[in-house]
């Protein structure tokens, strides 16, 4: 369970202040709020997942069915596992490209120049615009006949026989590009911040040793940035798993089920079909998968660290 806890800073013995309960006192507001508005709904969802409740169908009025929902989900619902598959694909692609692009941009802009403040602020705009508004804007831009994206791609000589959102492969790729556009700045910002606060001494030492730039980067910069990288990647992995707004507005999961990421699947089950019992099971399984993936991811990065050391 403790896997996910970032261990930056020294692991010194904590100073135990005199009055032990102060710590609990400080935690109290957090725990009260969370219990009230996160634990209670969670228990509620768990209870629902064991029942057959559909708000649209009178005969499914909430009968207790044990783990039937989970059994069906795990064994028979191939659509769900398809969704899970493309979500993982989506997440691996976007997070790795965002990481490389964001990192590169941070390295490139890691110098002092006039107007830097403006450039950095502009570069992070995409992650600040409300996803609902952005999604609708992309709809206009991606319109095949009248949208600017198709027009630009055509005018640089790319043959565009189909609408980007019209074929299975391009639709998923388009969603990926949009996600990359929107979240590369996130990685960029965090890495740039990290680069700014790097200590000078290790670099001076490396230069004295006559190490190549690449070697310095690999042996000095990367290890120093590692805690930051882990946090940035973790947050992105979690959020990429939860990708919903753009799918909802741009493709609704189609064409076919080519872009039916898990959260879209869960949304449809819960809020379009109103199959709340099964929907709760779906959502809990998604949650569990996120937990496992994050834990796994964290374990891997931890291990690598040990190898480096």
């Amino acid at each position, binding site marked *: 369970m403790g896997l996910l*806890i970032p261990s930056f800073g020294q692991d010194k013995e904590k100073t135990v202040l005199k009055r032990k309960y102060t710590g609990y006192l400080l935690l109290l507001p957090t725990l009260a709020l969370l219990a009230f508005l*996160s634990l209670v709904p969670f228990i509620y969802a768990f209870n629902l997942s064991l029942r057959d409740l559909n708000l649209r169908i009178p005969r499914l009025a909430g009968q207790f069915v044990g783990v039937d929902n989970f059994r069906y989900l795990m064994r028979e619902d191939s659509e769900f596992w398809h969704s899970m598959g493309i979500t993982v694909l989506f997440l691996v692609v976007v997070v790795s490209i965002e990481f490389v692009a964001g990192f590169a941009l941070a390295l*490139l802009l890691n110098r002092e120049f006039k107007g830097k403040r403006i450039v950095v602020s502009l570069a992070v705009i995409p992650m600040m615009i409300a996803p*609902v508004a952005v999604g609708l804007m992309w709809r206009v831009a991606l319109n095949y006949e009248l949208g600017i994206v198709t027009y630009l791609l055509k005018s640089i000589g790319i043959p565009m026989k189909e609408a980007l959102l019209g074929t299975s492969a391009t639709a998923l790729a388009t969603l990926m590009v949009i996600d990359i556009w929107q979240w590369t700045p996130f990685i960029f910002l965090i890495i740039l911040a990290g680069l700014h606060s790097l200590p000078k001494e290790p670099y001076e030492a490396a230069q004295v040793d006559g190490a190549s730039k690449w070697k310095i980067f690999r042996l000095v910069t990367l290890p120093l940035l590692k805690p930051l990288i882990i946090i940035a990647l973790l947050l992105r992995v979690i959020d990429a798993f939860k990708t919903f707004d753009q799918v909802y507005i741009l493709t609704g999961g189609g064409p076919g089920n080519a872009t039916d990421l898990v959260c879209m699947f869960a949304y449809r089950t819960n809020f379009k079909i109103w199959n709340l019992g099964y929907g709760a099971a779906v959502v809990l399984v998604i949650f569990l998968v996120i*937990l496992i993936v994050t834990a796994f991811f964290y374990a891997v990065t931890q291990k690598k660290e040990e190898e480096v050391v």
Partner: protein
Amino acid sequence: MKKTKVLTSRRQFIEIGLLSVAAFIVFLEVAPFLWIVLMSFKSRLDIFEIPPKLIFNPILDNYYNAFVEGPFSKYLINSLIIDSSSTALAILIGTLAAYAFSRFKIWGGKQIFFYILTTRMCPPVVVALPLFMIYSKLKLYDTHIGVILIHTIFNLALVIWLMRGFFDEIPQEIDQAAMIDGHSEWTIFRKFIFPLVLPGIVVSAMFCLVFSWNEFLFALILTQFDATTLPVGVPQLVTSRGTYWGQVAAVGVVITLPVLIFAVTFHRYLIRGLTFGAIKT
């Protein structure tokens, strides 16, 4: 002498090359936004003109229709109230909790910390329906305080996570020295610790603001007339008769401004604070 000159010019060449790559990426990031800005001043027919018109007769109708005729100025005020309060609240509560995790022995601390993190992993659909039921029972439905609470909660995990890093960064010796000097716990926090974590607070606040400002699903299902926020208003422009693209763009521009202003103003803190106190000298 000559040799170095060649080297410099080659280095400059590479330098320029790299910078233009950077400029290009930044351009790609910004261009869609500029396009939205242009769009917000276009009429419906101009919006769908191909090739796109760069020179057109700019109109203010979209802004006027959304903010003067339409309800968006009210939504804007709601958003400002709700998002600034929830950010303040999340920072206040989250900082206290992070301080506790960093400085105090908490029974089951690791587990509790982990539990708090999981609230961020949870897709919002999980809690949407039960929350609605709780809210309507407790009369929190369609109130500012209701939305503030839920926004606070989904930001809490992030604040605690970030702030804990900052607190861990500060050497324990500072506390100990202060304690030996006979300061109370509160004074230690206020006088010695707090100033050191200020950049962290700015960064956390910035992230809270961004997430809260753009949050859609909760604000949608938990509000009705009085507490509707800007993002919730946006889909209202998609009607069964057609979509008011120009107004969507206008609202999109306005939504972006406050966060942008915040980012430019606190730029210095942002960069410094974002290190999460993670890198040691």
